[in-house]
């Protein structure tokens, strides 16, 4: 099951970035296509979806082409309060003061 979900996600990402036509999934995965769309609402990579749809949907609005050219992306939307002990523990192992063995697993 894990394998299946991960393969589904792969398609989603490729589709989201390059549009449907380029990454037409292979036949075996094709049947998951409809369910994959629901799935994408749940994962974190949904942001550009609207843009993609517009892009190959044909009905492109003028405003969409003129979004500001800006590489800096600061995520103000989900600022967390890192003073909370629980939250702090969740990223503890990303620092040298944390558990080194867990961190090395991450980069296998």
């Amino acid at each position, binding site marked *: 099951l894990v394998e299946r979900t*991960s393969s589904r996600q792969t398609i989603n990402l490729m589709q989201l*970035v390059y549009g449907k036509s380029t990454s037409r999934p292979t036949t075996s995965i094709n049947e998951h296509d409809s369910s994959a769309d629901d799935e994408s609402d749940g994962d974190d990579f949904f*942001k550009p979806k609207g843009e993609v749809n517009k892009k190959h949907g044909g009905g492109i609005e003028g405003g969409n*082409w*003129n979004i500001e*050219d800006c*590489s*800096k992306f600061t995520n103000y939307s989900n600022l967390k309060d890192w003073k909370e002990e629980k939250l702090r523990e969740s990223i503890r192992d990303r620092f*040298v003061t944390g558990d080194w063995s867990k961190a090395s697993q991450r980069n296998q």
Partner: protein
Amino acid sequence: MGKISYKKLKGSQNLRQRLVLALLSSTPVHIEDIHAEETWPGLRPHEVSFIRLLEKVCDDCSVEINDTGTKLKFKPGIVMGGRNLVHECALNRAIGYYLEPLIVLGLFAKKPLNITLKGITNDSKDPSVDTFRSTTLPMLKHFGVPSEGLDLEILSRGSAPQGGGEVLLSVPVVQSLTAVTWTDEGMVKRIRGITFSTRVAVQFENTMVYAARGIFNPFLPDVHIFTDHRQGAQAGKSPGYGISLVAETTSGCCISTDTAVSYSRQEETAELEDEEKKELMSPEDVGVQMATVLLGEIEQGGVVDSTHQGLLFLLCALCPQDVSKVRVGKLSPYGIETLRNIKDFLGVTFVIKPDPSTGTVILKCVGSGFRNLSRRIS
């Protein structure tokens, strides 16, 4: 002269990247509908300024803009580079806007690039010059760019809206980049940072440093944030303050965030309200907020922060025909646009695979085999 076939594009989005890719891949482009629907149609001052900058560093470019500025025809020439160039940047974007494309072009120029840029050094929209020094330039070294001749010197600082800052950028030329396998994020070993203030009391900086340190200290003792207080002519023309933070990891990755606070520009009324809200932000809040954002980036993982994803993908695509493999956190909107542009101009498609165990994304690509053809062979 034969008829040139132009690549047709629409809108002003990613103008910088499109023109850079057009130059590198020698593709003439024709962009239509640039801010066509807006009250003030046509190219914005910063976009015009950027095109002028391109003409400065390149030879044999031809640019045609129609009367209203909504159509742009661009025929690329040769990237020349050169010494002692000076460019006055338009004041509605910071110098970071011009630096990002310039460092990529500089690498593939005929002669080493050495240019003075004047304008706003720090603002909230573009990466600040401090982030360039701490994060962007070290990132180039991963791709085999020599560190000699790669430098950004901050001669004076300038905040929005009046600017008055000045930086000196030097970029060496390379024959080609080297492909990377860069998936090890490592662990954060230290946090560095720099605060700046222009035409305000130095106390603003100390408050920002204190607030940011308070967030980091439970994680790591090795936190050092420098202050850079400018006075007199070096402080530009407007008051402002800001902070740039960078987390360095054991594997040599740099993850950065930055912002600056200053009075808003008086032109776009729609944004005015938004800017005014930020203007009220106290230095203490700025410090806390940026520290929080940086921890968010660290949590997200990846070898670069969201801001640098675009540059990372672009450099991967410009590598020789070897496989590059990189790990990033969540794809940023700009990163996604970059991937699309790369496919359009260079024909490089990335294989994008999520890594569910860590919540990161792994991208693989085969470089386009790009070489610097204009460099003189000595």
